[in-house]
């Protein structure tokens, strides 16, 4: 088997997953899927949330056994029963949510499971450190071996995960949506790292739904849609439009359609708002003042970590204000409770859907009714009116096309990220709030879901309500908003008109190189 090498069909491929079918009760997660990863190539696996990418990877790692199909590694048919088998075959994976022990050092995390030890079981860390330093030099992955994971940036954590695979001498590297958590600069670096790794002979499978990244880094791309294999294309011979049509099954409109509107009366007025940062014990938001009117989408743009999180905490009431005044629909809400603000017409699609958006172990219906369970429609004499809750949930599920295994009774944790987000969007918009605060509402979602959420935001604005969008995505900011406020180090440094500004100009304000007198 081994002597054919590259030219011959059998071992041209590092991984072949042939005609894989995996069924779950009520759903075919993988329906006759074939994926062939050539040696030394970067191969993208593209598909919307719920298209079957994760299931396919779980099959490769032996977490699920497929009903049909076979897996070949380097041309040899294999049976993978658990992740250890996969590891023995040289397959490694950087998970979307890193598998790192926070209180351990980088070095400890890398050697965990394959520790070099003396005969008595004592760790030989000096030896491991030496190897780690060599590897990090060879592949240009700079890490501090002795830094704790909890102290280092997400980018460095990811490099630690990559080094973990290299330390184990894995040749087949799988990256599961690696760019979702990175800053633009870190994405840039990661792309270079992936290219270096491929040049060194590693075979890379890159799972993503970001088309631009796939076009930039991958050699070939396989597309899945709703559990089915759609096809494999060379990225050289294709376009972003073609890929997205393959993924979604129809042409996607990247540009957000919206009619111009004249803003009405002021809904939200913020004066001199200052919010403290929990982490750094200083003021993360400093003396911010602005207004949001009826029928407009105002966008807070900025690079991550410039106070946006605390800004939203202050507005929504998750964090008390140090000073300043918030007026919502003419009422001072600076000190009112979160529920009070919600009843007065403030809705909040939170940045972290797992932390502030959903109770993950509740059912979908309970999550949907979370903002209004206390209303007489859903509660009578302290008891929940289950029937009404169920029919309300069913209505929203229908209306917002929230897909899940068991409808209203699905546990939120088991749903895909996109559908979790849809559930939150449905809950928050259906309240018909006069002010909708949407914080990175499309984070980690595929193009179909992004398009959908943008439409919802615009529809809400067209209904004469106010929308405050906080976003890190430049395209989203320019496409969706009517007015842009740039936030830098906790201050609003510019107000821009999306029709006249350019990404370059915005970038200068976002980086703090320029500021307007506000």
């Amino acid at each position, binding site marked *: 088997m081994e002597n054919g090498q590259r030219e011959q069909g059998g071992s041209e491929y590092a991984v072949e997953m042939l005609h894989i079918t995996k069924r779950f009760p009520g759903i075919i997660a993988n329906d006759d899927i074939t994926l062939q990863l050539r040696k030394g190539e970067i191969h993208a696996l593209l598909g919307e949330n719920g298209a079957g990418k994760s299931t396919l990877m779980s099959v490769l790692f032996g977490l699920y056994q497929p009903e049909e199909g076979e897996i070949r590694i380097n041309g040899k048919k294999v049976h993978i029963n658990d992740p250890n088998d996969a590891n023995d075959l040289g397959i490694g994976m950087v998970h979307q*949510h890193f*598998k790192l022990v926070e*209180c351990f050092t980088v070095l400890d*995390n890398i050697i*965990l499971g394959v520790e070099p030890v003396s005969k008595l*079981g004592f760790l030989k860390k000096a030896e491991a450190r030496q190897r780690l330093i060599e590897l990090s030099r060879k592949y240009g992955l700079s890490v501090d071996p002795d830094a704790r994971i909890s102290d280092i940036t997400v980018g460095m954590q990811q490099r630690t995960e990559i080094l973990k695979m290299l330390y184990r001498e894995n040749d087949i590297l799988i990256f599961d949506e690696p760019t979702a958590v990175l800053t633009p600069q870190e994405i840039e670096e990661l792309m270079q790292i992936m290219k270096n790794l491929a040049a060194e002979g590693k075979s890379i499978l890159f799972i993503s739904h970001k088309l631009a990244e796939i076009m930039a880094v991958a050699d070939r791309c396989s597309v899945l849609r709703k559990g089915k294999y759609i096809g494999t294309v060379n990225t050289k011979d294709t376009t972003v439009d073609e890929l997205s049509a393959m993924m979604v099954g129809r042409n996607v409109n990247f540009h957000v359609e919206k009619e111009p509107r004249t803003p009405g009366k002021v809904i939200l007025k913020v004066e001199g708002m200052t919010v403290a940062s929990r982490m750094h014990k200083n003021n993360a938001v400093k003396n911010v003042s602005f207004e949001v009117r009826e029928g407009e989408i105002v966008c807070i743009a900025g690079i991550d970590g410039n106070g946006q999180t605390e800004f939203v905490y202050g507005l929504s009431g998750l964090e008390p204000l140090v000073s300043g005044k918030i007026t919502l629909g003419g009422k001072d809400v600076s000190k009112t409770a979160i529920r009070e603000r919600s009843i007065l017409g403030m809705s909040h699609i939170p940045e972290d859907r797992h932390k502030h958006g959903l109770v993950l172990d509740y059912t979908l219906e309970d999550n949907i009714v979370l903002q209004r369970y206390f209303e007489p429609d859903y509660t009578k004499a302290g008891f929940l009116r289950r029937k009404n809750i169920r029919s309300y949930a069913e209505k929203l599920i229908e209306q917002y096309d929230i897909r899940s295994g068991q409808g209203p009774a699905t546990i939120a944790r088991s749903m895909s990220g996109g559908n979790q987000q849809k559930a939150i969007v449905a809950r928050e918009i259906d309240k018909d709030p006069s002010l909708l605060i949407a914080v990175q509402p499309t984070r980690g979602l595929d193009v179909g879901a992004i398009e959908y959420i943008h439409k919802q935001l615009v529809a809400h604005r067209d209904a004469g309500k106010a929308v405050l969008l906080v976003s890190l995505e430049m395209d989203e900011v320019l496409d969706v908003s009517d007015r842009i406020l740039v936030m830098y180090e906790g201050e609003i440094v510019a107000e821009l008109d999306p029709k006249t500004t350019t990404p370059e100009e915005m970038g200068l304000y976002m980086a703090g190189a320029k500021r307007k007198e506000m």
Partner: protein
Amino acid sequence: MILLIQYTLLFASVLLLVALGGCFSEHSGVINIGLEGIMVFGALGGALVMRYLPGGTSAVVIVCLCVCAAMLAGMIYSLLLAVAAVNFKADQTLVGTAMNLLGTAAATVIVKALNTAANPDNPSATIQYVNERKAFLMFDNLEFSWLMPLTLVLLILAYTVLYKTRFGLRLQACGEHPQAAASVGINVYKMRYAGVMTSGLLGGLGGLAYITAGVSEWKFENGVAGFGFLALAVMIFGGWKPFRIALAALLFGFFRSLSNVYTGFDILNQLNLPGTVYNMMPYIISLIVLILFSKNSAAPKAEGIPYDQGSR
């Protein structure tokens, strides 16, 4: 003064042993509330050996056998927690509480049965070991037990195992992020068993140390008077780190020993406080310590959460 030092060291060594046990269990990801029950069983194991050994047994043999019996008894009893918490994914706090209730009760029943069988007129739950206990003393007239140097050795051993060996690294990974540990091929179930059983071993030995600290008989219906819980407080105060636990144990041991020896200090006598105040001291201190320190505690992240291979 020498008395104060003696008792401080005695009680500190008990607390240290048990807290180190808790430390291993918690680093593997299992909260061990059942230390109290484990101590009782360890104590029972040791006491029974002392009671049934023939009269002329040499001191070394007595000590070795007692230590082994106590450790074994504690370890076997801790299996209850391991099976329930690891295999059946039970609520660890509930299992621990049940173990505490069961420990004292079962020990009482066993000792009563043995006593009644030996002498129908003696239905007490007390075991006496006046002569055997002397084997534990390093010096004739001082309350320095051989268990103290043993504790010191175990402290150093615990530190080395936790921070210098492969086993320790893997154990801690299981308590912090079991999914990460599993993803690199570590058997989380096995490691958690190891953690819980080590805590049984040390907890059992702690039980033996407790009933040989200054007394020559033990009423098993009294259990171990909350020492298992004190040890938990010591462990938390010590930040789950062996040497800091040792310092915490000394502090708690000091306050515990005050109740035994306060009559020997003029200043304390002049305060004219009732003896019960001193008895309450360690418990009150632990309450305060827990309130102050549990907020920014360095507890293993995944402790108390049953590990399930399927969950993300």
